[in-house]
């Protein structure tokens, strides 16, 4: 694109590209900064409802001990996300500290790597870490880049770019394919963009893009640009996927072919309707944040070992997410719904463990381990 343009055009193109990139980044910065919300069907400014059962999580799970993640002068858990490490323990990525950590099942710090920056061992906002069967670690930044590290995380084996940014989730399909959740950078306009992408590690290319929930109104497109979270989990050869603005679970096969969908049947999810108002220009950043809190956002879907689908969604109150958990059978029938849940960090599908931030803990380095009650 740059090569056949005049110098002036090239400069203009670069400026335009930078401007587009800046706009895309700044809009999605809201996502990174946001991470929260929840509501009431068709309500434009509905109140957040409290569960009539109060905090009913104890009726849903049984607790099996706690884990304290080790910290030191270089490692502090600020906004950690985690996945169960097939080598044992957890891979933790912290977007605020731009760091990836390896923890033992008991919370002992085995190692850490990464810092803020744009270099090969640096991240802006790390978004996922995946252990390959070979033992190496794939680490993805939010903005269309990443690197593969050796088992210990001490050496960068290669860096790569992906077309997806901002990235919301990454799931290993096999040792050569990764399912990336997010929007292809630069895709915009009125056409609903695909949100899931099968990305080939070897070819460094997207094999297929799919899952394009429609966004019929401006207010929904704006919300999707700001907080278009995508989550996916896999059980066998079926993928379950969610999009932040849809109270529906979508199923696909590993090639991305649709395999049905079920409504979530939530009691408390607040849908952003097409008729909902746009944020008031008079409210500034505070008004924009209040608008973001006027509807719910689906954040994660997990597939538990007993086939229960666990959806974690949020209602934002100010800057803080209030977490809600919804348990569903595969046919969409509701098993439970809990408001004011502690944050569900990850689910170990193989062993049935659920890992929460310890209820009441002011910091996220204390976890509680639980199992769904039968």
């Amino acid at each position, binding site marked *: 694109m740059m090569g056949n343009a005049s110098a002036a055009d090239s400069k203009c193109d670069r400026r335009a590209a930078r401007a587009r990139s800046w706009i895309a980044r*700044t809009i999605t910065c*809201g996502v990174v*900064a946001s991470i929260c919300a929840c509501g009431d069907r068709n309500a434009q400014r509905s109140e957040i409802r409290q569960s009539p059962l109060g905090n009913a999580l104890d009726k849903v799970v049984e607790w099996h001990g706690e884990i304290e993640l080790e910290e030191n002068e270089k490692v*502090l858990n*600020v906004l950690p996300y985690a996945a169960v490490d097939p080598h044992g323990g957890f891979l933790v990525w912290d977007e*605020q500290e731009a760091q990836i950590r390896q923890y033992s099942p008991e919370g002992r710090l085995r190692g850490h790597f990464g810092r803020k920056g744009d270099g090969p061992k640096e991240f802006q906002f790390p978004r996922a870490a995946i252990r390959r069967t070979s033992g190496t670690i794939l680490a993805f930044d939010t903005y269309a880049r990443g690197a593969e590290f050796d088992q210990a995380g001490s050496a960068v084996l290669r860096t790569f770019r992906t077309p997806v940014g901002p990235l919301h989730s990454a799931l290993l399909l096999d040792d050569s394919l990764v399912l990336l959740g997010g929007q292809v950078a630069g895709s915009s306009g009125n056409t609903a963009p695909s949100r899931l992408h099968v990305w080939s590690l070897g070819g460094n290319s997207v094999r297929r893009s799919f899952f394009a929930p429609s966004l019929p109104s401006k207010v929904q497109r704006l919300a999707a640009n700001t907080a278009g979270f995508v989550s996916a989990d896999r059980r066998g050869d079926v993928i379950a996927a969610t999009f932040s603005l849809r109270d529906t679970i979508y199923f696909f096969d590993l090639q991305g072919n649709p395999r049905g969908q079920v409504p979530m049947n939530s009691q408390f999810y607040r849908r952003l309707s097409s008729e909902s108002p746009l944020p008031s220009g008079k409210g500034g*950043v*505070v008004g*924009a944040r209040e608008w973001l809190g006027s509807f719910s956002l689906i954040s994660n879907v997990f597939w538990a070992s007993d086939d229960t689908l666990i959806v974690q969604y949020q209602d934002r109150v100010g800057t803080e997410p209030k977490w809600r958990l919804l348990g569903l059978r595969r046919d969409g029938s509701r098993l439970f719904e809990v408001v004011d849940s502690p944050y569900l960090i990850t689910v170990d599908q193989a062993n049935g463990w659920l890992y929460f931030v310890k209820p009441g803990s002011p910091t996220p380095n204390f976890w509680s381990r639980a199992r769904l009650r039968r």
Partner: protein
Amino acid sequence: MRRTWFVYVWLLATAACGRTAGDSLQPGDTFPAIAGVPAGEGLHVVWVLRPEDYLKCTTGADQVRRFQRRYGSGVPLTVLYVGEHPEWGRAFLTRHRVNGSMIVVDQRRFKSTFRGRPGNGVHLVEGDRVRKVVMLADTSELAEMLEPVIEPLLVGRGGRDSSNIINIKELR
């Protein structure tokens, strides 16, 4: 309609990553007495924080955290919170594991006291004297920028030792 759409996008973009205004204080100035800040004779830092500063992607909290890990309680932090929704500010500081006290003032009072718009700056203050001002939007190295000023002052007070290094558990 396209223009209206752009305005909304711009608003959210600004909400996400807006740049802060400048600060009127300079090294050598007296830090204006406001709501009990500054307090005491010692060396401390005052972080001026408004909703616009943390309702975006780059908040500066990571820099303040790194500073606190380096100097700990030896250089205590006061957050001078300017504007509405102080409860959001408290939640933000807790979530970002920033350790310090927070004092809330309204925008009008802050402006009249500081004679200018509040900026997202960290002020190193000794007693009531400003030693250095660092605007967080201008750097990613807060601790490194303050170090040349802090270290000699700490030496004069017996030096920085391990007692100044914050116990990470205190951040809880």
